[in-house]
């Protein structure tokens, strides 16, 4: 037995003044907003509100492939799960994934694969989970937009952002970004995903009746709309960090008011002993440190992400390792002692600093060797 209230569908898509029913011009998008970092557990996540669509996307991975037989030794696999909530549509949807959801998962995956460097993740998988909480037409486009945002938020290397937006035709006029109603009444629908770097199209479906001329207009609209959404994507990605920066600035201005004597009192606290030790260690490190390191190296540039796999080195490393263990830790009997000791020596700070210096000095050679050494797996070729 169906739901009591019938879904409203008027045959008319335009108002008397020539605008669409929601007051938009033919080449105007529905209200769009997006946000990243909305799911704390996920490696990366995004929320997209596009018209009445409310879509969450989350990234997990790269991680081990499960089941194992799906793993590929030459490249990573991307798995997209597009699901609609039972309450996202007019009539309750069954919770089990249906054919439509599986198909959309596949086309979204294929829209995203061209912009990812999957070769850099052999034997692993990246999972994208997309949950449509409220649907209002054009969910596959909005989902791709959300997935692209989530991937960027997760720090997965991408050649470009992608943006999903649809064009279509209703009552003989070419429209941008069809709403649910226009989609149902209209004669044609072209969902597109645009790779923003070169404006190429990586997802394309079309059903309906449209002349090539109209299609051309449709693609023009799509590219125009994609640019607007793209700018909002970038804004959202930056806003996540800019928001924190602004808050920090406010906090900084408050810090300026901190009384001076309070700061002094800390320096001369009863635990000065500890601090003396620690700070003196730093000084020692400074001496140890390579003098070249003048440039601000706060964010230590990640060394080349690919480990060099030379068995000769590994073996000799092992030898060195073992030899040293014999020499240095004869008296370290329990591992507990070991740890306490290590922490007292402010292990990692000492450990890190020489390493930074080393990176710095060897960076040039490294980069000369692998000129385009980005984690993008360029050196695969």
């Amino acid at each position: 037995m169906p739901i009591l209230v019938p879904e409203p569908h008027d045959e008319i898509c335009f108002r008397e003044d020539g605008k669409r029913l929601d007051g938009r011009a033919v080449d105007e998008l529905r209200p769009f907003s997006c946000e990243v970092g909305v799911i704390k557990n996920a490696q990366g996540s995004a929320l997209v509100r596009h018209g009445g669509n409310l879509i969450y996307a989350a990234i997990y991975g790269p991680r081990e492939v499960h089941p194992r037989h799906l793993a590929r030794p030459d490249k990573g696999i991307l798995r997209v799960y597009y699901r609609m909530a039972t309450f996202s549509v007019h009539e309750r949807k069954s919770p089990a994934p249906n054919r439509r959801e599986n198909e959309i998962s596949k086309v979204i995956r294929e829209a995203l694969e061209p912009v990812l460097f999957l070769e850099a993740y052999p034997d692993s998988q990246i999972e994208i989970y997309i949950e449509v909480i409220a649907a209002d037409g054009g969910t596959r486009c909005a989902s791709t937009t959300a997935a692209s945002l989530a991937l960027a938020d997760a720090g997965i290397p991408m050649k470009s952002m992608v943006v999903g937006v649809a064009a279509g035709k209703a009552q003989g006029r070419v429209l941008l970004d069809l709403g649910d109603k226009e989609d149902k009444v209209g004669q044609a629908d072209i969902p597109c995903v645009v790779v923003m770097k070169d404006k190429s199209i990586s997802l394309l479906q079309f059903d309906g009746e449209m002349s090539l001329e109209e299609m051309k207009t449709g693609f023009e609209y799509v590219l125009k709309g994609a640019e607007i959404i793209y700018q909002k994507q970038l804004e959202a990605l930056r806003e996540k960090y800019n928001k924190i920066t602004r808050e920090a600035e406010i906090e900084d201005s408050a810090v300026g008011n901190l009384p001076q004597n309070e700061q002094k009192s800390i320096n001369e606290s009863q635990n000065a002993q500890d601090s003396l030790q620690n700070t003196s260690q730093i000084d020692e490190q400074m001496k140890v440190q390579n003098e070249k390191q003048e440039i601000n190296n706060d964010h230590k540039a990640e060394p080349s992400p690919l480990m060099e796999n030379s068995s000769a080195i590994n073996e000799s490393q092992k030898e060195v390792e073992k030899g040293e263990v014999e020499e240095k830790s004869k008296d370290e009997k329990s591992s507990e002692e070991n740890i306490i000791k290590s922490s007292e020596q402010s292990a990692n700070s000492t450990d890190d600093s020489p390493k930074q210096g080393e990176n710095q000095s060897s960076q040039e050679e490294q980069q000369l060797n692998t000129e385009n050494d980005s984690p993008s797996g360029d050196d695969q070729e």
Partner: protein
Amino acid sequence: MMDINEVVSNLEKNYILKLLKQGKRIDGRGLFEYRDVKIKTGFIPKAEGSADVFLGDTRVMCGVKYDIGTPFSDNPDKGVCTVMSEYLPIASPMFEPGRPDEVAIQLARVVDRGIRHTNCIDYKKLCIKEGEYVYILFVDCYMMDYFGNLTDASAIAAIAALLNTNLPGAKLNEEGVPEWDGTYSPLTIYEIPLSISFGKVGNVIFVDPNLSEEMVLDGSIAFAVDEKKQVTSIQKYGNATWSVEEILDTSKKAIEIADELRAKLNLRQHVPQPK
């Protein structure tokens, strides 16, 4: 964020245990202190009722949809309300896509029993024609972010979504088939049941376990408490055993906490205006 993994860290377990024995919690709460609850309702246009509940960082979304169906033969004049839950894989690296497993089903049934046995909904008003047409309510709880204690968060989400529900009215037409009468009205809800969960590690009992506590605890227990200060359902999870005194003491605590929480949340503010 603690590391999330199915294999519990021994270090974390010992640390949490040590703190609990001193009456402290890893997030600085007291043993019987509930996390902050934030509720947003009515944000899904196509659902009859919806709620988005944050319990600390745990997040559960709930939507209510309805259908017209035939009643159960033993209750021909009563509507039906079914709670279902989905452990969305977006919520945690530990959740996998697929059919709801036994944990998800258990959670749905615990929330369901909390609602059913309090008699919170007037099921008779959900009957359109006795023995033939009744409303079937589907309450779907979606776990959006897992930071512990999904049971309580789902219970709050479910009842908030039900309170937020605006159900289209029905009348029988000439052929005896139900038809929309052009109105919407909220459900009649007499009671607001709340679920209060306690965790147990060793012999320490505490309310509202967070994620890292939930990973290490021996067992937990969930009480559904109604507005008449009665415990209406209990579910024990996990391997811990509970003495009778512990159960009774904890029940008393649950009633106190539920009262406080109910007053603080003021869930009835989410009831929509009848159209």
